[in-house]
């Protein structure tokens, strides 16, 4: 029973993580993780990243008919 409960919790956690990635909520965290791995220039702030990401996304076809 406990194993079943733990599996259920894992599934919920996975679903929540997937939903955050799909919606874009996790985009800044992903960017920070990547910046940390690359150790390049100082990462931009969350607000700057958000606007920059939107400008890129909506400059090419991203919604179909």
């Amino acid at each position, binding site marked *: 029973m406990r194993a079943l409960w733990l599996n259920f919790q894992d599934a919920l956690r996975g679903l929540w993580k*997937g*939903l*955050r*990635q*799909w*919606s*874009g*909520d996790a*985009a*800044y965290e*992903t*960017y*920070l*993780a*990547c*910046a940390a791995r690359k150790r390049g220039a100082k990462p931009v*702030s*969350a*607000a700057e*990243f*958000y*606007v*920059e*990401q*939107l*400008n*890129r*996304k*909506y*400059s*090419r*076809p*991203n*919604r*179909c*008919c």
Partner: protein
Amino acid sequence: MKRLLQILVWMAVAALGAVALSTIALHRGEPISATWFVLAAVCSYLVGYRLYSAFIAAKILALDNTRATPAERRDDGRDFVPTNKWVLFGHHFAAIAGPGPLVGPTLAAQFGYLPGTLWLIVGAVFAGCVQDFVILFCSIRRDGKTLGEMARDEVSKRGGFISQLAVFAIMVILLAVVALVIVNALKSSPWATFTLAMTIPIALLLGVYLRYLRPGRVMEASFIGVALVLFVVVAGQWVADSAAWAKVFTMSGITLTFAIIAYGFAASALPVWLLLAPRDYLSAFIKAGAIFSLAAGILLVRPQIRMPPLTRFIDGSGPVFAGKIFPFCFITIACGAISGFHSLISSGTTPKMIQREGHARFIGYGAMLLESFVGVMAMVAACAMTPGVYFAINSPASIVGATPAAAAATISSWGYPLSAETMTGLAHAVGEQTLLNRAGGAPSLAVGMAQIFSSTIGGDRLLSIWYHFAIMFEALFILTVLDAGTRVGRFMIQELGGRAWKPLGRMNWMPSILLSSAIIVGAWGYFLYQGVVDPLGGINSLWPLFGIANQLLAAVALVVATTILMKMGKLKWIWVTLLPMAWLVIITMTASYQKIFSANVRIGFLAQATALAAQLAAGRVTAAKVVETQRNIFNLRLDAVVTAVLAAMILVLLVEALAQWYAILSRVRKPVLRETPYVATQWAEGD
């Protein structure tokens, strides 16, 4: 033993699909349950995915999971982001699912349920899914290059230019036709107009919230937004019931046209975070919810399909749009079976985010199957209505008459019984003044959806709320396409214009932004206005034009795919892309020819223009209508020219490709495949 069991299970799925397909194909007389449609579609998709996509993945593309994808090699946390395959499937599906698979099948239902349903299923399995999958694969192997770049590199420079032009043409016509669908859904409807108008301040509020208060917290902002949108759907009823407020939000087609043009300009010129992006978030959540609810509703209610398998209008005399079943059924269905626009998504964001090459099958092929299923659900919703009601909603006044009595008499004379009381009662039940002459597919789909939803929750009491929820969902969905498309069109104009005059190419220079926004909005706004004042209802001219442009782009994508397969040495399997390409060329060419040259005035642009010119010359047009008639003549000739240009583009590309193929096959030229070199993945299996 396990293998034998698997074979038996798949044989059972295939047999069930065959039985379901035969049932919907051979059934005559009494209404048939929608369950057969769901079974036929799902079983065909499962077999197509299990066998055909696996064959393409293994034998033709040879997907290689040991090869690093662009997301791994170029991971930058911005564009190139390795993404879980289920999440990317959701992203890709949200991007490809637009209003097309909802509107196209609804319009094609005038031929009966059978032709459209069969094309939705067969077209998706053998053409649409193949296109999306192969183009996604090609782009992954080329560092996420776009369709235009691949056409230039693999076919010819002219090929690249043609695909850019095709994208621009489809964008202009698409935006005009989807805007026309909104106008026809909102005109004279204060409830629907209020609801949609309120989504603008809601989007602005979310924009400010996401930019300044909680940057990037998309989910919490979207939940607030969805709650507010649902509230305004209900509040719309109070507006419609108030004489003063109803007057404010009761608009004619022309007024709505200018309002939407002004909105498109604002969405293109304003910062993207303020209006466009938050609306897109709202739309994505509502879209996912509504599509899921429709599927669940159909499964629960299992409505009876009242439309016959074939109607008398397969002869081309249909009131919704004119033209015979071939080629117009295929042109009209468009996105639910195959959409050229998808190739832009498959060569856009998705290839930059895919973790493994092997995921391309699930994402490219699988997401298109789901899109096709959305089309089948739209067909079910449209065909669950009585045929008389369907034709009354979707036919223009010039054909069925403008009053319930006239429409009922005309439609009943076609053999589809309808009483005036049915139409007035239905309009009253959904909270509208009238449902007559609402061409475009959105209102009839909304009625169909509302009937399914209200059979699940709320009964007739909630029919009006469900109807306006469905209209809001469709319009919100369409406005997202409209503002995102207008903005992309603006960028294309800036990019192309910048070659002629450098300052125009400066993306952040305000005069350039305003000028290019005005040009793109003016282009689709012109076609929209033309559709609104068209005496035949606009959809008759514009939807086929959109279908031709969309299928043209699909033909471009399949030409590129075929060329690449040929260069890969897969000559034996080339039919996988060559046959759908040939089919698309045949239907776009036939439809283009008929739209330009048909002697039937309801089909041929030139014949209609000539007929109007003859009426004008004979003095049979009243003085008040002379200017309008002259404008209609000009518009029809313009439509003929646009169709001819689209057809010429595909012919030029085809000639370019044939020259390239001949050179490869005759060994005159050594095929050069412009793939990025192999790099082994650093990720362990299962990452």
